[in-house]
């Protein structure tokens, strides 16, 4: 039929144009990077079985981890407040309570052994030039180094919550939230969550003075962070729309993939934690996605019925015209 032929011609040209300006043009503008599934293939696998008891001794003692990191799960607060820590180290060292659940074990091991290498910031921290990473390498407590590191990782895993207990917000706050703010509040399961700053959730203040004090602290923290990173890491409120899931995942997996020489470290999250970070960014930047699917389905059903009636009406009216 002639009309169907015309429709086919219009459709072919439309789809061709779409293909050229969308998938094709974007493939030419941005190189495609495949995810490795957060396997961190460049890092050596853990070969030794860790002993958590011994690991605890090392973390608390010879490893000197708690000189900088808090472990709330063990009742140990951070040695410094966030702002002072950032002014000392550039960025606030994370609390280690959840590290065993959020980060890949072999990444943790590589990090303890040589932070600049595991974090992929050796271009910025070159020991031979005296540029020391603020986290010092662990050179061992006298025994087998790899065994000792395996013990420390086992300890961190033993105190960490189970994978399913890690919430999207926890994963984000620990892995990303000490550098990146999210100034959008968000509603999740009927509960309003405040906006996130690099020093934590922004509380509700009754007095303006208290709010200004808090904001001053945030600015002080950001100033230290800016000096450390070279630029203030961006607010991630709309990143799920501006970058999309694939970009964020492959970027987090290896920031050097896209920005050679960037100061952003590889943070070493495991695959589950990466999913949770994405979910958190969706909760913040695309919070109506479930509603969209639900309404979308209903509208499509309605429109199909409308189209059927429209076709029937046309047939009815045109019966006399042919």
């Amino acid at each position, binding site marked *: 039929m002639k009309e169907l032929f015309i429709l086919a011609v219009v459709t072919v040209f439309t789809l061709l144009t779409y293909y050229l300006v969308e998938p094709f043009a974007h493939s030419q503008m941005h190189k495609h990077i495949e995810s490795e599934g957060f396997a961190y293939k460049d890092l050596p696998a853990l070969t030794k079985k860790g002993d958590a008891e011994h690991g605890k001794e090392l973390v608390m003692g010879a490893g000197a981890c708690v000189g900088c990191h808090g472990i709330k799960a063990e009742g140990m607060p951070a040695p410094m407040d966030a702002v002072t820590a950032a002014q000392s180290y550039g960025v606030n060292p994370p609390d280690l309570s959840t590290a065993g659940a959020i980060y890949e074990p072999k990444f943790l091991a590589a990090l303890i052994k040589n932070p600049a290498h595991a974090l992929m910031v050796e271009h910025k921290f070159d020991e031979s030039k005296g540029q020391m990473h603020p986290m010092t390498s662990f050179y061992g407590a006298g025994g087998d180094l790899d065994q000792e590191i395996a013990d420390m990782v086992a300890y961190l895993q033993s105190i960490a919550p189970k994978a399913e207990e890690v919430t999207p917000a926890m994963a984000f706050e620990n892995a990303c939230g000490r550098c990146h703010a999210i100034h959008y509040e968000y509603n999740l399961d009927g509960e309003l969550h405040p906006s996130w700053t690099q020093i934590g959730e922004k509380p509700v203040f009754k007095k303006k003075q208290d709010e200004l004090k808090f904001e001053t602290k945030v600015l002080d923290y950001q100033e230290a962070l800016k000096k450390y990173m070279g630029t203030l890491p961006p607010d991630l409120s*709309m990143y799920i729309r501006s*970058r*999309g899931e694939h970009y964020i995942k492959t970027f987090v997996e290896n920031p050097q993939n896209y920005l050679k020489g960037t100061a952003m470290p590889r943070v070493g999250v495991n695959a589950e934690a990466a999913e949770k970070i994405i979910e958190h960014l969706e909760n913040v930047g695309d919070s109506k996605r479930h509603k969209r699917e639900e309404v979308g389905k209903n509208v499509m059903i309605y429109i199909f019925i409308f189209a059927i009636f429209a076709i029937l009406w046309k047939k009815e009216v045109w019966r006399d015209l042919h």
Partner: protein
Amino acid sequence: MAHFTKATSLHDWLNQRLAIDTLRRVLATEYWIPKNINFLWAMGMVLAITFAFLLVSGIFLLMYYQPNVDLAFDSVNYTIMQEVGYGWLWRHVHGVAASVVFLIIYIHMFTGIYYGSYKKGREMIWLSGMLLFVAFSAEAFSGYMLPWGQMSYWAGMVITNLFAGGSLHADGLVEWIRGDYVPAQAFLNRFFMLHVLLIPLAIIGLIVLHFGALRIPHVNNQDGEEIDFEAEAAKYKAGDKANSKVIAFVNDFMSKDMMVVGIYLIFFFYLVFYHYDFAMDPVNFDPANGLKTPAHIYPEWYFLWSYEILRPFSTDVGLIAFAFAQVIFFALPFLDRSPNAVPASRRGLFKFWFWAMLIDMIVLTAMGKVPPEGMFSAIGFYAALTFIGLWIALPFITKFEKKV
């Protein structure tokens, strides 16, 4: 003074005062349309419906949008998209409709070109349609500024720079348009005004003119046949609908329009709910930052062909070529020297001209988006030359066209 009698019904009351029966007859039931048409003739109604979607969704967005450089981005991406009930739906409808409306406009334009619906008394239809195209382009551009994202800012910067006229260095004109040295508050405010008031008013006025321009020459038909509308209408009114070559606008034509609209809306709402990214560039979800130029700056897809006519040349030549591309479609009825107002398939060389123009514009569109490097800039350059060449050739190939 007219004589008024006591009304027998509300209908009669209105009829005495507004002549609604006459209006209905003139505008609907005895407004004659040729029967020999295909679904492409419904694009006008599809455009009207899409414009209505834009208008209604725009009114809702207007209630929450803040035309302020510090608030605009968050009023769109936070307030409207996340806080306001169904705000996300209005925004997605508005964004998708703004893109799809151009797809339909291009289909509508190329339908007109293919069937020769711009000649033999139909010149004003074409010209008013082209004015609508310009008004819609200005509306799309001004609207694109409003979310105040990175693409808003940098597209605003690049496009307003064009008014410096290359070597003319009319920087004063650029500053006058912007109200500042760079796009800032004054710029956002005036584009907001243009987008929500002045251009929509112009569009509504032009739509009336476009409809009015159809009235006397009547709608064209699939074979370019000249129809005696009065004789055919008489046949229709006498009850011989089957043999009449015309149909009534309401319900005959309208029922076919609505069938096409129904199918179109399936496509439209599929895009709104499941495939909206193409209409809302990801880069524009980064807030405007005058200190950080995006890696790739490109306009929305519907401006790419004319952008690519600008890009491959040196500044001055590019601007002249660009200006040529903006106005040349207006001249179509006068550059086509052939008296034939029939489908392109029956018009000899013009048939090839039509398909060459269509394909060339698609090539330009594609090359306008990809980075202008290597092979792409060569293809873009030759496609731009082909565009200009085709228009120069048009009067010659149509002059020698055989009369059908």
